[in-house]
């Protein structure tokens, strides 16, 4: 079986160097490579589940994981390395599947005709000259995030990742609403300045 190979691959995620997720995904796309898929699953599934729980899914957290990973398996050939890193690509799929799942659970699916994929598009073709920069941009984004003061990062994470309203964040952190808004505004401003400095 190919299991052994997959496990050793997974072990390497413990090291600081991330495995070549793009190469693994290419193996899934080209050869339906289950060992490669398992390696991707073992790294991302627990993170997708954590995201789902943070977003307030309880018993449906596993459902979201399965939906996202099914999507990754079926659409691995649509991943374009020059457009986004695998973690960004999987994040965008997770976000869209979360919205779809909510639509299904709210039974609003029948009422909302327009597809989630039309509203939150995941680019599949590399047509811009700028996209060459994407991979380095991603590392840069990570570095930029690390530079944000912790209190701003906490507020940003709660809003971005946990889908909390500003009021909820204020209550959770026991700080005034204005302070939450201020921290968010500052963090977004800083990120924009850092992003733009990088682009020029």
């Amino acid at each position, binding site marked *: 079986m190919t299991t052994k190979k997959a496990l050793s691959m997974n072990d390497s995620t413990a090291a600081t160097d991330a495995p070549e997720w793009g190469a693994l995904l290419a193996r899934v796309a080209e050869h339906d490579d289950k060992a490669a898929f398992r390696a991707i699953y073992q790294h991302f599934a*627990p993170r997708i589940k*954590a995201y789902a729980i943070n977003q307030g899914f309880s018993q449906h957290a596993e459902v979201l994981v399965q939906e996202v990973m099914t999507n990754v398996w079926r659409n691995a050939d649509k991943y374009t390395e020059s457009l986004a890193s695998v973690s960004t690509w999987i994040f965008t799929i997770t976000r869209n599947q979360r919205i779809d799942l909510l639509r299904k659970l709210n039974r609003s699916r029948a009422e*909302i005709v*327009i597809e989630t994929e*039309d509203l*939150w598009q995941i680019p599949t073709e590399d*047509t811009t000259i700028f996209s060459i920069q994407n991979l380095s*941009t991603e590392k840069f984004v990570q570095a930029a995030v690390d530079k944000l003061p912790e209190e701003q990062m906490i507020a940003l994470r709660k809003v*971005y990742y946990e889908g909390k309203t500003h009021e909820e964040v204020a209550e959770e952190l026991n700080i005034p609403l204005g302070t939450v808004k201020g921290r968010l505004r500052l963090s977004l401003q800083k990120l924009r300045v850092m992003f733009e400095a990088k682009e020029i």
Partner: protein
Amino acid sequence: MSAHHPDDMSLMNYAAGSCSIPESLVIAMHLCFCHDCRQHVKNLNHLGGALLETIKPASIDDDAFETLVASLESHDHNANAEVKMNPIPAERAPCNFINPLLRYLPTSLADLPWQRQTKEISKFDLTSLINIKGFQVALQKIKAGAKVPKHTHRGLEYTVILSGGFSDELGVYHEGDFIARDATHRHSPTALQNEDCICLTVLSAPLKFTGWHRVFNPFISWR
């Protein structure tokens, strides 16, 4: 390139997938026109990827992977092509971002069966696309140089200009511009002289005409 954009908070909420569906429609439409915002959303998506990497992982059942693979295999056997993602239409904007309404409009903008509201203003209602209580979605066409009666909004009004442009008390807006107005704004947009203005508008509550036009208020078509 457009000069009026959604603010950073809106773009972040969009990237995070936490804005409302109607709001996402106007932002997606703006992105078709605006390279800067596309770039910023791309960065904010990267932020999502970075957060996914640094999240504290949850535990997954040991057999979850095997269960998934088994279900993938049985599905792949049965209904292979059917469950694939919807194919995206070949018509693709050079910006790699497709007009989100493309698949839902019966014809091109010019040939739409516009519904005449007044001599100078017509409408193509899209509310059935996003049937969320309290939201009205429509394309609006204002004849070149025509003026929309002064109105305020009971809720929020989002506009993206698809062609032409208009001006109001607060500024001049052109193709691709994104305009968000709330109940505190009272305005009477006038289409620019040279061409008809077509906009996508999303209202979170019906318009309220002010001045003598207020007599129209009970008649505003509202699903």
